């Protein structure tokens, strides 16, 4: 049966009107929060409170609220998506917090993710990395029978593990260099593991990494903070795979 309790909290929330304004923290007490609420429902509750008091509610992104779309992007007490492992902000529940606790709520911070307003940031740089090569070049109507090429369950499972990335950008926000290596490597890895994607794997790796650099993401210094923050458990193994790939892409390019 339900173990729900009511708790009171103090929220320190980042407020910033737009990209040009300098932001600041604003403090809000929130009372009577059910521990069954999700973190975003708690923010909804606070926003209702703010609107009734005549203020401007806090802007934050969310859509599916099921941990799959990658919209939500809140840094909670310094951790992208908060304290729980493999949990996006929208799936974090208030039972994880103590009565009387102070919670600091900020956007995902990275040079490549400018703040749009409050907690909402612009992550379109990640889309541009995909546009640079995160696909198989197959147009509609060109496909052979789906079972024509058997793929070992192992490769297919590994490819799936990499494909589970939701593109939220927590890895970037967690990295002290704001690197997008985990994100980029997950896509490179997924497609390289499958025969359909392997054909253009070198070109893909080169183009995606070049775009990543153009977008002003930092370099990877192997601290592993990205892996720890990832809500989908994308592992560093993908990065090792990408590095191998990238080196070989580079080598073959030179030989040619």
């Amino acid at each position, binding site marked *: 049966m339900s173990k*729900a309790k009511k708790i009171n909290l103090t929220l320190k929330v980042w407020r910033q*009107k737009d990209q040009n304004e300098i932001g600041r923290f604003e403090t809000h007490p929130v009372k009577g929060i*059910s521990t*069954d*609420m*999700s973190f*975003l*429902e708690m923010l*909804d509750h606070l926003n209702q409170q703010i*609107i*009734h008091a*005549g203020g*401007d*509610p806090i*802007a934050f992104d969310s*859509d*599916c*609220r*099921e941990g*799959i*779309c*990658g*919209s939500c992007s809140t840094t909670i007490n310094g951790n992208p998506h908060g304290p729980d492992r493999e*949990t996006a902000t929208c*799936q974090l529940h208030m*039972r994880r917090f103590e009565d009387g606790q102070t919670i600091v709520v900020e956007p995902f911070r990275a040079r490549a993710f400018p703040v749009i*307003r409050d907690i*909402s940031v*612009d*992550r*379109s740089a990640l*889309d541009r990395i*995909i*546009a*640079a*090569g*995160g*696909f*198989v*070049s*197959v*147009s*509609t*109507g060109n*496909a*052979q029978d*789906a*079972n024509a090429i*058997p*793929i070992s*369950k192992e490769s*297919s*499972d590994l490819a*799936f593990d990499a*494909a*589970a990335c*939701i593109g939220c950008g927590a890895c970037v926000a967690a990295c002290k260099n704001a690197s997008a290596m985990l994100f980029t490597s997950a896509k490179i890895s*997924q497609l390289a593991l499958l025969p*359909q*994607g392997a054909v253009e794997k070198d070109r893909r790796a080169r183009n995606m990494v070049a775009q990543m650099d153009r977008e002003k993401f930092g370099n990877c210094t192997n601290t592993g903070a990205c892996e720890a923050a990832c809500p989908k458990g994308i592992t560093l193994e993908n990065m090792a795979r990408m590095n191998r790939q990238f080196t070989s892409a580079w080598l073959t390019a030179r030989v040619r």
Partner: protein
Amino acid sequence: MLKLDSKIPGGPLEQKWDTHKFKIKLVNPANKRKYSVIVVGTGLAGASASASLAELGYQVKTFTSLDSPRRAHSIAAQGGINAAKNYPNDGDSVYRLFYDTIKGGDFRAREANVYRLAQVSNAIIDQCVAQGVPFARDYGGLLDNRSFGGAQVSRTFYARGQTGQQLLLGAYSALMRQVGLGTVKLFARREMLDLVVVDGAARGIVTRNMVTGEIESHVADAVILATGGYGNTFYLSTNAKGSNGSAIWKAYKKGAAFANPCFTQIHPTCIPVSGDHQSKLTLMSESLRNDGRVWVPKKEGDTRRPEQIPDEERDYYLERVYPSFGNLAPRDVSSRQAKFRVDEGRGVGETRMSVYLDFRDSIKRLGKDKITERYGNLFQMYEKITDENPYEVPMRIYPAVHYTMGGLWVDYNLMSNIPGLHVLGEANFSDHGANRLGASALMQGLADGYFVIPYTIGDYLAGSKLPKVDASHESFRAAENEARGRITKLLSVRGNKTVDELHRELGKVMWDYVGMSRNEAGLKKALTEIPRIRDEFWQNVRIPGEPNFMNQELEKAGRVADFLELGELMARDALHRTESCGGHFREESQTEDNEAKRDDEHFAYVGAWEFKGEGKVPEMSKEKLEFERIQLATRSYK
């Protein structure tokens, strides 16, 4: 009255699509780049259409209200996608998929559309595999299948519990490839506020830049809406927070017919409501019913813990009532049965408003690992939300609003009655009749986008003489002014209730009177309650902030204002259809054992509503459904 010409090609069912593809006009390759197409929405339908049209050479402009096309709510689909591959050799075929879909829809869909859907289903799977979609495979390296409700064969392809995600990422990657090539111009965080019609043809849209507040006009030779369903009219649903009906509602108000608005799907397996703070409901995929058994205690008001209730005191009611389909009875049927059990006082959980979905037996039979492999992420999601471990205690589930079969009316070419306005995916009404079978929405979205619209839009473009138009045209000016005027009006109310509060009020009326079970008195009540809430909205809503910054309350307000009109149309449609069919259950029309009773003599038609002006009663036209191949029969899953 509207003249609704479905444009169904002649000839035998099996050959209609091929004949049609041969007969329709083509745009020659060199001319394609002279045509521009606007696609609104980047879910499965919109992303697949954008990519495919750009590959053909059209100039495409694609819009999404989200920050990235990859976040469209198709991403949340869990269970799978159907196709008639018959890989398991269990007797599937195009005809069987067609038949199951027509029957599943309770004989309220067009034969020709559904047959085409079944025909192209196999090519969808091929296309997705070619894109690198990691579908589940067996140890031989071949694709695996599972079963879904309303089918007795295993035809559902899946990628763990994240099929929608993987399919959407496939379509998104195809779309982004075109963005990279410069053939698609992508507009994210843009909300369509109006459709622009010039000389009777759809020629563009007006949008709001959700970051800067700018109102912009976009011109094209044709417009495609792929904006998803309107289940959020109910406030609580399995849809995303941002899912909305505004784009199709605006098109309706510009003259597009709205077909079968009352056909709503209530999904039987969702996590029950836990309190007033609830912001949305979470689906537990139907695939769970492959291995989970649904039950309630036999005794009314039995408050023992589930494990203390011995088997002989449990009522596995789906297995009891529907011995041949059992736990895989279709959604509408299963939802109603759950409601009956709760109404009988046999519901479980603290609120007594849920039933059990129990994996005890399958864990015993297959082992915990197998269950984790099949449903791990769903079990995890359930535990995160409820704080209960479904490996140990049965899940508690209850029906929730999930999908809208109704939508804009389209002909066989997926074009609405406004020339040039095409509608794809959940936003149209076309293939699911009065009830959609599990794993068929993904199939339809991708069929529409990959394999239907690329052909049919060419026919439209090649066959019409479109005058040159730009954004300075008076129709664009007028639509922009109207959009600005509405924003000013919304912001100037400065009342006392929040948008969410008013939306919740609407949702409650919808759920109580236009929900799982409907009757005349309730629907009439809804028809007085909804306008009352709407009036209050326009007099008492409080929207803080300014128009020229990101303003999420303003975004929500615009959508809720539209839901407050759309909800009324849903109630009106439900009231007029006095039969029960599929997800539309009229208490006045049921059999002795409480099954939906159809009335083919009076209701074998699509009800398409036409906007007649603000404050005026809309008018309904009928498209009669002709069944050449299938015998209308009582739908039975017993």
